[in-house]
């Protein structure tokens, strides 16, 4: 059964220079325990799509869709209040900039505890125990001490671990990770990715992972959607995509991987976009 089904999602922003279509009728489906990767260059509407599903876009955005159904529940028909009972609990999200995503004025323990309090109604003592547990789960050393730290006292990698702890605190059915490793050092990237995949397997979560990195796709995803300028270029099983990319844009993404370089320069994605290579 599909965990999340989004049909024909369109997002339009009101801007000073008229309406801007950031997302033009894309459909997404994620099954239980499935990992869906969304790839595409900057500005292709990956984040906008996820924020639309979460109901987090600013008022300047108009969201239209034929359906947004999560676990059989119609999210489009929900009141903001009903939607708030799902997001943060059954659908959780982590972001690209872990440091900036945590509130600098509150300890990380407090920020995790908030979710436990609001969604699960846990009391102080129980919350404390669970926070320590969660921090252990995301491999933060000395959690009893660490839960009292402020975000600026931690590294980017640790902050992302805290964000992950927060996201999995209510055992969500779907975790959306929007470029969770882009802002981190290469060695840390690998650790965070491993942690995410391990938690996904342990908890049996469905997951949407957004990335620019075809290497990340290969390591994590079951299925891939390739997106370009708010449209879907291609959707395929991950093995099929790498073996037999259909759209020229996808071919470009794959060719841009360093290990596929031939000739004297790295191909860039622009060489393969529908608009053709950029003028030299």
């Amino acid at each position, binding site marked *: 059964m599909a965990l999340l089904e989004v049909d024909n999602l369109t997002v339009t922003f009101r801007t000073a220079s008229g309406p801007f279509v950031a997302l033009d009728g894309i459909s997404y489906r994620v099954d239980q325990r499935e990992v869906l990767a969304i790839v595409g260059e900057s500005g292709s509407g990956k984040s906008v799509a996820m924020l639309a599903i*979460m109901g*987090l876009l600013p008022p300047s955005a108009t969201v239209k869709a034929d359906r947004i159904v999560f676990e059989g529940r119609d999210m489009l028909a929900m009141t903001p*209040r009903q*939607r*708030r*009972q*799902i*997001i*943060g*609990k059954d659908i*959780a*999200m982590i*972001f690209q*900039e872990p440091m*900036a*995503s*945590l*509130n*600098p*004025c*509150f300890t990380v323990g407090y920020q995790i505890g*908030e*979710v436990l309090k*609001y*969604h699960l109604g846990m009391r102080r003592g129980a919350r404390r125990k669970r926070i320590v547990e969660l921090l252990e789960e995301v491999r933060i050393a000395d959690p009893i001490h660490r839960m009292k730290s*402020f975000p*600026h*006292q931690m590294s980017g990698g640790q902050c992302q671990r805290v*964000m992950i702890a*927060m996201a999995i605190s209510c055992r969500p059915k779907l975790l959306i990770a929007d470029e969770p490793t882009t802002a981190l050092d290469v060695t840390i990237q690998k650790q965070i990715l491993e942690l995410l995949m391990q938690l996904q397997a342990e908890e049996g979560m469905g997951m949407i992972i957004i990335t620019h990195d075809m290497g990340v796709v290969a390591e994590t995803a079951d299925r891939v959607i390739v997106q370009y300028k708010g449209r879907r270029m291609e959707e395929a099983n991950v093995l099929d995509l790498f073996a037999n990319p259909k759209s020229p844009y996808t071919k470009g993404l794959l060719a841009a991987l360093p290990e596929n370089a031939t000739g004297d320069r790295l191909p860039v994605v622009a060489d393969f976009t529908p608009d053709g290579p950029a003028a030299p």
Partner: protein
Amino acid sequence: MFRFLLSRLALIVPTFFGITVIAFLFPRLLKGDPVLLLSGERGVSPERYAMLNEQFGFDRPLIVQYFDYVWHLLGGDFGTSIATKSPVLHDFFALFPATVELSLFAVTFAVIIGIPAGIIAAVKRGSLFDQGAMGIALAGYSMPIFWWGLLLIVIFSTTLGWTPIDGRIGLRYFFDSVTGFMTIDALISGQRGAFSSAVSHLILPTIVLGTIPLAVIARQTRSAMLEVLSEDYIRTARAKGLPPRRVIGVHALRNALIPVVTTIGLQTGLLLAGAILTEHIFSWPGIGKWMLDSLSQRDYPAVQGGLILIALVVMVVNIIVDVLYGLINPAIRYRS
């Protein structure tokens, strides 16, 4: 934190000396002779004039007078008022609570209205409320205190008769000053109606003195909130499914308050300047009125001492604000 405090205290010393120079020269640059003003209409004989001048020490060169004054200051002696003949420090502290009470009311008034107004204006950016509130704030910010005070007196005291015109409490109440705060003393006295009389006397002065801080706080809160609301951590708070009340009132406000508290603290000097005018308008017996009266009598020791003491108060408040800033901003608190 301790080192931070020490460095702030070290800064006080040169500032303090600068202020003594200004405070010493300022009344002397004005026309008018304290001795002549003291003797009033009847005038004074040249012999008696010379005697008084010598008694106050005004016959010596300015530079000698200055160092003599500072020397005494360092011993905690602010001199004796020419007009009241009592120590300046004594006069100051007798009147200071009245000014503090008025200032506290004014700041509280400004905070209680200004912060919520700023929050709502930011959240409903561009709305009618936002435009209206910011228009009023701009008007309030540029309101001449004197004119504003007279306007309120004409409307609410003279025409409508709702509020008293001057003083701190009705004439029929009399009790000993315990704290110097009329509202608290009225409560302690247990006399019926004394407290409400004290409060009614505070209403107009509070509004007049609080108007400019109110405008500043509302505008500052709005701009701080607007900045904070676009931060990533606000998106995180909403992605957690927290109710808007909590996202705005806790996650956003807590961050927005950091610059707002600083602004409030830095307004203390302006507030005391405003208090001088406000006290004059409402015959409020605080240090503002005392300073103006002393100035018109060229009471050099009182004016000098008053200026220095007010400057000290502003400096102390600024240090408190710095400490507070460290306390509400975890990024600073834990740096050392």
